[in-house]
């Protein structure tokens, strides 16, 4: 599904990420861990086109026989190809309603043009109805349907995180990048998140790449883990392999 080769990201003199490589197979849940400042979100930003890497290539294969090189593409183009993400510091459309936040996620798949949306031509009207139903369905899935008309910024933190995920799901992605989805969650919420991630993976046929600091989450749901420290890949493998890796333990020594 996704193959990253020799990814290097330099911001002037600072090397955020150096010769990173990774491979994610369809249907997998893969984790990306490492101490704070290791460059994990930078990797996400490069994959989604927010940054253009100094070196390296990224190959995305959403379907059999169709491979795209992502470097140099704009973020919206990459989203249309089927990669969507959530943000470490939630980036919702604060002043818009909960429903509208999810609705907007579907806009990229809209086939009708803008004039037909103003004139409410039947083709557009039908698409809008479908998007509404899909948005409501996703809201019910995350349990926020009763808040659909509330302003997104008025929601408590945990609900905002869930809303961001629903919004990402609305883009009909093939690959979902989750940036610290469990941040700020208590054990109960973390448990629900783990179940939720597995549920949506099955239902929507997703491949998931996630950054996470909550070790229970990563270790439990990942099939494969990549470990970054100071921008360098120091280990990769199954959860148990990574847990026993001396370099990983050293990198995390003293950190929870």
């Amino acid at each position, binding site marked *: 599904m996704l193959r990253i080769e020799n990814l290097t990201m330099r911001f002037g003199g600072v090397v955020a990420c150096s010769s990173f490589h990774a491979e994610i197979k369809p249907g997998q849940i893969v984790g990306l861990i490492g101490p704070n400042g290791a460059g994990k979100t930078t990797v996400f930003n490069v994959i989604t086109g927010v940054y253009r890497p100094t070196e390296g290539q990224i190959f995305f294969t959403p379907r059999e026989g169709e491979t795209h090189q992502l470097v140099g593409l704009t*973020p919206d183009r990459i989203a249309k190809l089927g990669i969507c993400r959530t943000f470490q510091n939630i980036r919702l*459309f604060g002043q818009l309603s909960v429903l509208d936040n999810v609705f907007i996620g579907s806009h*990229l798949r809209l086939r009708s043009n803008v004039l037909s949306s103003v004139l*409410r031509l039947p083709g557009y009207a039908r698409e*809008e109805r479908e998007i509404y139903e899909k948005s409501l369905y996703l809201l019910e899935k995350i349990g926020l349907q009763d808040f659909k008309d509330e302003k997104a910024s008025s929601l408590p933190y945990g609900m905002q995180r869930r809303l961001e995920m629903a919004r990402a799901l*609305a883009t009909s992605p093939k690959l979902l990048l989750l940036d610290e989805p469990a941040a700020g969650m208590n054990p109960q919420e973390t448990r629900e998140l783990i179940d939720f991630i597995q549920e949506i993976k099955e239902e929507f046929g997703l491949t998931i790449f996630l950054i996470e600091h909550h070790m229970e989450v990563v270790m439990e749901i990942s099939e494969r883990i990549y470990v970054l420290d100071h921008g360098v890949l120091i280990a990769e493998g199954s959860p148990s392999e990574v847990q026993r890796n001396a370099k990983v333990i050293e990198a995390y020594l003293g950190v929870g």
Partner: protein
Amino acid sequence: MPCCAAVGKNRGEGETMREQQRRRLALIAILCTVLALFLANKYLDDYKIRIINLSGIYVTLGLSMNLINGFTGLFSLGHAGFMAVGAYTVGLLTMPIPMKEMNFFFQPIVPWLANVEMGFLPALLVAGLISAFLGVLIGAPVLRLRDDYLAIATLGFAEIIRVVFTNTQSLTNGALGLKGIPNYTNTWWSWGVAFVTIWFVSFLIRGSYGKAFMAIREDEIAAEAMGINLFKHKVLSFAFASFFAGVAGGLLASLLGTIDPNMFRITLTFNILLIVVLGGLGRIAGTVIAAVVVTVMMEALRFLDESINLGFVQIKGIPGMRMVIFSIILILVVVLRREGLLTRLKGREASYAEN
């Protein structure tokens, strides 16, 4: 998705009720306006009718600027430029040929315009389209700029347009301006266009593209990550706004009968910005009401510029007092009520708090 089928039923009734309410309200508003305009035309003097025409034009201007600044969150100060383009287009296209000859005494008009004379509606449409085209041309390189830089760039373009118009003697008659533009604008035209603009902007905002505009306003990075092409949507918003600004400029030209490049300075843009801010960025009804209130007040406060004769004492008029009082009112509104004069009306209009 088969799983969605059951969900659809729940939302069906709630939505259509709201839609019906909306439609009824709109119909009532239109009927009331038609009646009011009819009565106004019958019983009011020319001065008051001119104010009514002006307010209608400012409704269109306010809404078109709100589309860029309020809904898409782009800080654009170029409106006067697009108005100028529209005004001159209508002026040149509707002016009778002998009148053109009289106007262009200093330097003859370009041959391809000398014998053109069109009706009002086609001229307005051409004005809108040319303004929209210019909007795309200007917008394309400039819309990626951040807030303040975009403001300066759009302001710059408006000024460029004004200066160009001042110096293309054979096309626009330069600083001499155009006189004798036929007065086609009446209350039906000015408010007819206003209602078309209200309808267009409302439906645009309610639809998916409108939500995309607002998403860009809220968080560009997130919007792009969700697949919204920033360039395309910003240019689209800009193009629609310029279209209506051009049409409004054309209506203004036909209302005043006389235009010159100096009319289209930055102050004109600020007047519209004033209306947009007072009515609330991102609020349609607020903008409509603010347009009418501001236009009426600007005229109503004129008495402050004149001397007031109370019989036994005469208070000398202080020229410019009108604007002082007006500015004080504006400051009070902005300080005390940052979201504009109107409280949120029912509906999907997103509020915009100053950032």
